[in-house]
């Protein structure tokens, strides 16, 4: 809860739901409040406020607590889920990489609608597939795909009462005949009305986490090591809950057999023992040997991995933000835990005055903290107290998350501003595109289409291109920052 977070959330809502909902969201972000209070504090008609709240609740972005009269309620904003909306492209991409396109569309539709009943979802996806490619996708196939998304826990039931874990992933009762009837324009009473499904972000995060680990191992060592890590994680789930900080022991023979059977990485098969030994002896301590029996068994140290990755990220950020001298000092403080300024000056071999400047810069930006140890009054000596520099990682992480929010806000604001400045031009381009698209669809081509396309003059085209490039850059940054935030969130979760 901070000003930066509030700004970011408001902009996310504006971009996806428009100003009305953003305003309502902003009010309930500040304080959970009743309908009456919201109408009083916003300059929006009652009917719109009601609609806005309904949309927010439907998308699981707001929650409500009924008062004792069971009619009125107190509404509050679900901040976590709103920030999650930035990660939606990654969720869809993940599903695409893991399954195939029809799964991707299923997940995309759920994300777009917030929550849906299974039958509604299948109807929607069928319609969309029919429009897109005229491919006759089998309803049965879609149903099976949806069911497998549920069994893999990517999708879960949404319910007001808290359900037990088993009930969350109970397969729905989908009647394909009824769906077919609806598709052919029949009645609209479906057997599973009132049973809503939404995505299970934890499951997606688990996959993103694994991807992050495999990628970092691949970057540090090589492809083969990445494959080894991937298989280790895969075998980890056989015996371990996904979110524990260090896994139960995994017998390495199991992994070896899989590697042999698949035979996709011949080098990994040939030098399997060596690869395992390197991974185990590496300073990062990703896996730890716990038993010698049957070739050895290993634990995956999740918490440790994320502490390491976060340290790396923090050091990199200090490096980029304050340059290499600062990161040298930062690393020194990290390795010594508590250190006096004089010692730092002696050890980093940078002129004393600059060391001081950098130290206080880091202190000012909350990357370092000062601990003061007072000596008791009886002892004599010139210095009365020690001043020790220290890094409090959790505090640094929080600072960095704030920084991320601030950057996100700046990026989004910039994008809005650019759009606003060039609104006329963008609208014009949009209109011309619609017209030419319509003409092509009707089979008209040649000069008349060119004529309309030429309504946008070359200088205008130049400006449009520049804007497009800038938008792309800003959006890319948004996606990248979300990656950093994900890493930091993971650290805080394991903490």
């Amino acid at each position: 809860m901070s000003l930066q977070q509030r700004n970011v959330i408001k902009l996310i809502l504006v971009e996806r739901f428009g100003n009305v909902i953003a305003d309502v969201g902003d009010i309930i972000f500040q304080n959970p409040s009743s309908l009456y209070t919201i109408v009083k504090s916003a300059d929006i008609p009652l009917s719109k406020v009601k609609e806005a709240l309904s949309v927010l609740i439907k998308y699981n972005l707001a929650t409500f607590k009924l008062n004792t009269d069971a009619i009125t309620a107190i509404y509050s904003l679900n901040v976590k889920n709103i920030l999650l909306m930035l990660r939606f492209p990654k969720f869809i991409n993940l599903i695409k990489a893991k399954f195939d396109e029809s799964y991707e569309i299923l997940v995309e539709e759920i994300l777009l609608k917030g929550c849906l009943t299974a039958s509604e979802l299948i109807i929607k996806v069928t319609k969309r597939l029919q429009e897109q490619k005229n491919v006759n996708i089998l309803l049965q196939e879609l149903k099976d795909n949806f069911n497998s998304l549920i069994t893999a826990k990517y999708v879960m039931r949404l319910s007001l009462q808290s359900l037990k874990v088993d009930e969350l992933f109970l397969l729905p009762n989908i009647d394909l005949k009824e769906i077919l009837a609806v598709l052919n324009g029949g009645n609209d009473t479906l057997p599973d009305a009132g049973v809503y499904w939404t995505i299970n972000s934890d499951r997606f995060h688990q996959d993103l986490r694994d991807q992050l680990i495999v990628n970092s191992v691949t970057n540090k060592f090589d492809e083969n090591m990445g494959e080894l890590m991937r298989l280790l994680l895969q075998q980890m789930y056989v015996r371990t809950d996904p979110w524990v900080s260090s896994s139960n022991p995994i017998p390495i023979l199991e992994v070896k057999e899989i590697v042999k059977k698949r035979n996709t990485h011949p080098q990994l098969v040939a030098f399997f023992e060596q690869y395992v030994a390197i991974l185990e002896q590496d300073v990062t301590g990703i896996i730890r040997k716990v038993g010698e029996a049957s070739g050895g068994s290993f634990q995956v140290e999740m918490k440790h991995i994320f502490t390491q990755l976060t340290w790396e990220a923090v050091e990199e950020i200090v490096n980029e933000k304050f340059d290499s001298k600062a990161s040298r000092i930062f690393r020194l403080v990290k390795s010594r835990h508590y250190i006096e300024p004089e010692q730092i000056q002696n050890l980093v071999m940078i002129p004393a005055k600059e060391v001081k400047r950098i130290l206080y810069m880091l202190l000012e930006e909350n990357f370092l903290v000062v601990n003061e140890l007072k000596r008791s009054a009886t002892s004599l000596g010139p210095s009365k107290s020690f001043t020790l520099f220290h890094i409090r990682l959790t505090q640094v992480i929080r600072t960095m998350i704030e920084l991320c929010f601030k950057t996100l806000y700046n990026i989004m604001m910039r994008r809005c501003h650019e759009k606003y400045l060039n609104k006329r031009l963008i609208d014009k381009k949009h209109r011309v595109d619609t017209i030419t698209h319509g003409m092509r669809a009707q089979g008209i081509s040649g000069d008349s289409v060119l004529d309309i396309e030429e309504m946008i003059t070359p200088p205008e085209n130049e400006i449009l291109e520049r804007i497009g490039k800038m938008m792309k850059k800003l959006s890319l940054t948004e996606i990248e920052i979300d990656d950093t935030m994900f890493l930091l969130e993971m650290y805080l979760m394991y903490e």
Partner: protein
Amino acid sequence: MSGRGRGRGGRGGNTGLFNREQLNAIGITSNESIPGPIREPPPLFPLLNRKPVPLQESLELDYLLILRQNILDQMQSSGAYLRMPQSSERLDKAQQEIDKLIAQLPSVKEKFDWNMLPAELRPKLIAKRMKMKESKAVDVNSRLNQLEKQEEKTEKAMDVTVKEEAEPDEEEEEIQENYEDEDMDDGTDYANNYFDNGEEYEDEDDNLDDGPIY
């Protein structure tokens, strides 16, 4: 350098943040000039000392960008994207007509399951319909109960299964009656949509009449 200044503390010059002794302790000696307190806010667009590293582009990122744009476009054209109703004076008649037509499209209005939402959020018309449905349901239940009681009386047999069936029905009826009572309650009448700014009374009703019943 910093060692020299030690023990000479306590001499003037105060920034308001640290006193001289503390400054000495963390290594600032008296012969270094201390900048005065800053009395103006930092600039709105400070100069960057370093240029950020350019982002690496890749096919995957491009696909993510497309997905992102896709989601945004679809969200903005869906019914969940609310617009403020424009004041009727500013619009000409033709525009109003178009707006009315657009409002009738099924994709423009978001569908809600009103059972999932607090009762106060229901639009007036739907609230009325739901109430009617409920009162009907009560009638059926009570009627069934009456019939069952009559049966019991006539048979004069204590059938366990009938009793079991009758009990939950009675409970349900009570709950629904309670609910109705609360609806009538004047204390919470702001929940029932009596508020009207007079601007778009007719518009709203029109739309709802044409929309499906959820």
